[in-house]
Structure formats: structure tokens, C-alpha cells
């Protein structure tokens, strides 16, 4: 049964994970050490796997015949609904780790709540993703502390990443009509209800890492409405070129 609002909501969930998964995959072969290279690739594959399930579900909710591949490879940047946080280039290792930590805690709370979604398919995907995400939190938190409490250089890089990323965290928790409608029907979660739990989990780790939490200040948003930074288009051109050059090919 078509459900346009739930389609919009699930598309956001899928796009966050597809874009961040692709950003992480850019580390493949470039990790600081072999073990971490594999760890980042594992997390990347977890996220792309979650995105695949979510976009497939979105396609069926839309009922216009779009598959997960159509949605991933044949939409332009303006049609993507990911938060801005996940689309920035991978940066240095500190940037990647701090972003991963901020997003993973958010994702863990979101998936925990979505396990009780009225939509049983979404609830099932959330239950699977929650287990993966718990590990992502553990892994990235360990690294945030290692970098923050490490050398002067690792601390400075982690702090810069946090300062640069903080203004994009607000978008994760800003709710619009789509969020409120799916929350009211019991299908989705109002993201604004996750913010205090997110702070309760994020701040102690930053504190342990010796990192200063930036002032709240102005929060940048736009991705949920298709208003993206220039970075997403460049990323998509690389991510989509194979599928667009050889439509219908399988491998």
C-alpha cells in the first residue's frame, strides 16, 4: 500500500546510511593501519547494507517501481534526503572518527526506538541495524578517547573536527511535519525526542577524551529538504557513474 509520508521518512534513514557508508568506503586501502582499514570497511559495509534494506523498503512504500538501486544510483543530489553531517568529505582520520561517533550514537538511539515501529519491516531492519550500530558506537568512542587524550596533534585534530561538525548535529534532531506524522502513526520516531539521550551519551565520552564541547550557536540544516553542500554532488558523481554508464548491468 503506497504511503508517501513513510516513504519520505524511510528515504531519510536510508540516505543517511548510504552517504556515510560511501564516505567511509573512501578509506578502503588508506586506513592508518591495516586493522583499522578493515574496521572502517566493516562499518561501511554495515551502513551500505542497512541503506540497501531501507531503500528497498522505501521503494515498496512508494509503489512506483523504484528499487533500492534506482533510488541509490538514479537520483540527483537535490533528491537526496540525508543530513548534511554525513556528506562532508572524509577529511583526516580524526574527522572521520568524530563524525562516526556523533552519527553512531544518534543512529543507535533511532534504531532502538524504531524496533517498536508499527511497520514490521522497518522494525525488523532496525533490530538488525541496532546490533551493528552498538559496535560502531563502541569502536568510534574508543577512538575518540584515544585521539582526544592522545598526543597534542591528535587532540588538536579531534577538537577541530568536533568544532567543524558540531553545527551540523542540530539537523539530526530537528523535526518537521514528516517526522511528526510518522511518529503520530507509530511508524517512525520524532528525532527531537532523541536529543537529550544523545547528549547524555556523547558528552561523557567527549569529556573523557578531553575535548571541549562547542557552544550551541547556530545550527546549519538543509539536507532533509534536498538543500545540500557542493560535496554531495561530487560524491554522487563518483558513486553513481558505473551504474549510470551501464544501466541494468549486474555484477
Amino acid at each position, binding site marked *: 500500500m503506497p504511503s508517501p509520508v513513510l516513504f519520505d521518512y524511510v528515504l531519510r534513514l536510508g540516505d543517511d546510511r548510504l552517504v556515510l557508508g560511501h564516505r567511509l568506503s573512501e578509506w578502503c586501502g588508506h586506513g592508518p*593501519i*591495516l*586493522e*583499522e582499514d*578493515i*574496521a572502517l570497511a*566493516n562499518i561501511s559495509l554495515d551502513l551500505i547494507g542497512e541503506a540497501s534494506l531501507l531503500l528497498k523498503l522505501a521503494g515498496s512504500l512508494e509503489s512506483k517501481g523504484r528499487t533500492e538501486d534506482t533510488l541509490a544510483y538514479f537520483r540527483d543530489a537535490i533528491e537526496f534526503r540525508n543530513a548534511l553531517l554525513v556528506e562532508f568529505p572524509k577529511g583526516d582520520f580524526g574527522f572521520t572518527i568524530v563524525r562516526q561517533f556523533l552519527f553512531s550514537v544518534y543512529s543507535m538511539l533511532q534504531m532502538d526506538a524504531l524496533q517498536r515501529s508499527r511497520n514490521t519491516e522497518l522494525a525488523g531492519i532496525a533490530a538488525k541495524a541496532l546490533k551493528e550500530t552498538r*559496535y560502531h558506537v*563502541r*569502536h568510534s568512542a*574508543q577512538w575518540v578517547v*584515544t585521539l582526544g587524550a592522545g598526543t597534542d596533534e591528535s587532540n588538536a585534530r579531534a577538537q577541530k573536527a568536533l568544532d567543524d561538525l558540531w553545527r551540523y548535529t542540530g539537523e539530526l534532531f530537528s523535526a518537521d511535519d514528516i517526522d511528526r506524522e510518522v511518529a503520530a502513526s507509530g511508524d517512525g520516531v520524532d528525532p527531537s525526542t532523541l536529543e537529550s539521550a544523545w547528549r547524555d551519551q556523547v558528552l561523557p565520552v567527549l569529556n573523557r577524551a578531553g575535548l571541549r564541547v562547542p557552544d550551541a550557536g547556530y545550527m546549519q540544516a538543509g539536507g532533509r529538504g534536498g538543500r545540500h553542500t557542493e560535496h554531495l554532488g561530487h560524491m554522487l558523481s563518483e558513486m553513481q557513474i558505473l551504474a549510470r554508464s551501464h544501466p541494468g548491468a549486474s555484477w
Partner: protein
Amino acid sequence: MTKGSSDSQWPLWEVFLQPPKGEAHEHAGSVHATTAEQALQNARDVYSRRGEAVSIWVVPSASITASTPEDMGPFFDPGNDKPYRHPQFYKVPRGVRV
């Protein structure tokens, strides 16, 4: 990593996995890590991605004391000519039910 160190690698840890059927932990390989928690995570990511384990041990490689090739003669050869150390060497006496 200390500046000027000739070895840029982190300390080595040995990884032991317990298979899902519950047998004893078996040596799987080794990983580099700076802390025990990091070693555990790296072992998980490198050696147990496909459901190979239900439990992981990691131990600093430096903590393992190993026998050397020179030990082979005195350690292991004396066992070769002592078949009476195997239970099969003994016949079951008459009248004993097995």
C-alpha cells in the same frame, strides 16, 4: 608511536577464537593494537566477521614464552620410544568388562 622509532607498528597481540560449537579457544592469528580493548576490537574485525567465534581472547605477544627449535630434541624426542605411555599399550586383563 614514538618519534624516530624504527618500527612504526603498534605492539602485537595474539588472537584466540572459540568456535561456535564450544570447543577450546584456538589460535587464529595476530593483530596490532595499543590497548587491550583496541586489540579485542581489531581481532573482532579481522578474524570474526563471518561468524567464526563466540568468544575472543587477546594476549600481548610479548607475554608468550615459546619453546625454541633447539628444544625439539630434548623436549619431544624422548616420547617417541615409550609406547607404554599410550593406553593402547596395555591389554585388558581377562575378566574385566569393558
